[in-house]
């Protein structure tokens, strides 16, 4: 096979289907080995920019997947995604703190889940991401907010045993609606 240019006319039957299933495990292993050797050579030619672009796209796709199908696990998705975002772009996290005009200490507190991010923090992050992704792909403004609130909703609902007894003390129903 070669990379010679073909005209734009479709090869009859080319797009209707490909049966590309391996006939045996042996074939799959041999093909995988040869392919890996060729890929490793090609990977050496990747620029830093291409690698960063791939990592940022990966982060975007991971966040979109989380928004579509929120994983019900006690994991800090917002801060984990935020760490990935910062570490992909910056060598040191303080540089990100400087770029969004907050102190390194408050950034560290957010990243270590010692403090909730303020709305202002998420707004600055939103604008930072918008500018970072501008030449890479579309990045919805609401993405960080959606990740944050999805996680918040899950945490609140799954930790009812912790907050409910105390909160319920403050709730009284003075007018109970009876079904007619």
């Amino acid at each position, binding site marked *: 096979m070669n990379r010679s240019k073909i005209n734009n006319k479709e090869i009859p039957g080319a*797009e209707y*289907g490909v*049966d590309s299933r391996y006939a045996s495990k042996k074939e799959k292993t041999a*093909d995988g080995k040869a392919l890996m050797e060729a890929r490793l050579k090609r990977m050496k030619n990747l620029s830093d920019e291409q690698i960063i672009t*791939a990592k940022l796209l*990966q982060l975007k796709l991971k966040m979109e997947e989380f928004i579509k199908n929120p994983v019900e696990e006690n994991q800090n998705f917002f801060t984990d995604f935020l760490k990935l975002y910062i570490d992909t772009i910056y060598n040191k996290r303080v540089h990100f703190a400087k770029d969004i005009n907050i102190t390194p200490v408050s950034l560290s507190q957010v990243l270590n889940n010692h403090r909730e991010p303020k709305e202002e923090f998420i707004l600055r992050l939103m604008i930072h991401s918008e500018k970072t992704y501008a030449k890479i792909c579309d990045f919805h403004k609401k993405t960080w907010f959606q990740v944050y609130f999805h996680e918040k909703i899950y945490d609140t609902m799954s930790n009812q045993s912790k907050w409910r007894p105390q909160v319920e003390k403050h709730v009284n129903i003075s007018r109970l609606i009876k079904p007619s």
Partner: protein
Amino acid sequence: MIVIATKTNKELKIEIKPIEKDDYRLVTKKRYFFDWKKEEKQEVYKLTLEGNKDILGLISIERIPDEWRIHIRLLTVSKENKGQNKNYENIAGNLITHVSKIALREYAELACVSLKPKSSIAQHYIEKYDMNITGATLSIELPEIINLIKKYDHE
């Protein structure tokens, strides 16, 4: 993501979702060229117009995490979308892009999507999707995956 209606040149939004059990009754060999029931235990995705149930294309894949690779097992468009009188353009391209997005989400800069078509149609895939050739295997990696996503993913 969109397909183009060939008669009107209109762009129409599509959805790509995992196939459901009930769909296997509808994906006949007559309309979708392969025996898709044999793929029931595999990871299979269907492409439909947004809000429509009619399946326009199907793809089945195998994830090979040890190699940061996803291998396309089967790929097809429905009978009416084959050849020059097809109803919609870009069905196969969108399905390959969907798989490329999964590979990129899982493996970032190491991502690879491979397939092994018959040599008679391989040239089409090399040309249309800028695929690399290793023996009889075709693959897209970085930067081709990013280019493909930029071209087909309008979300």
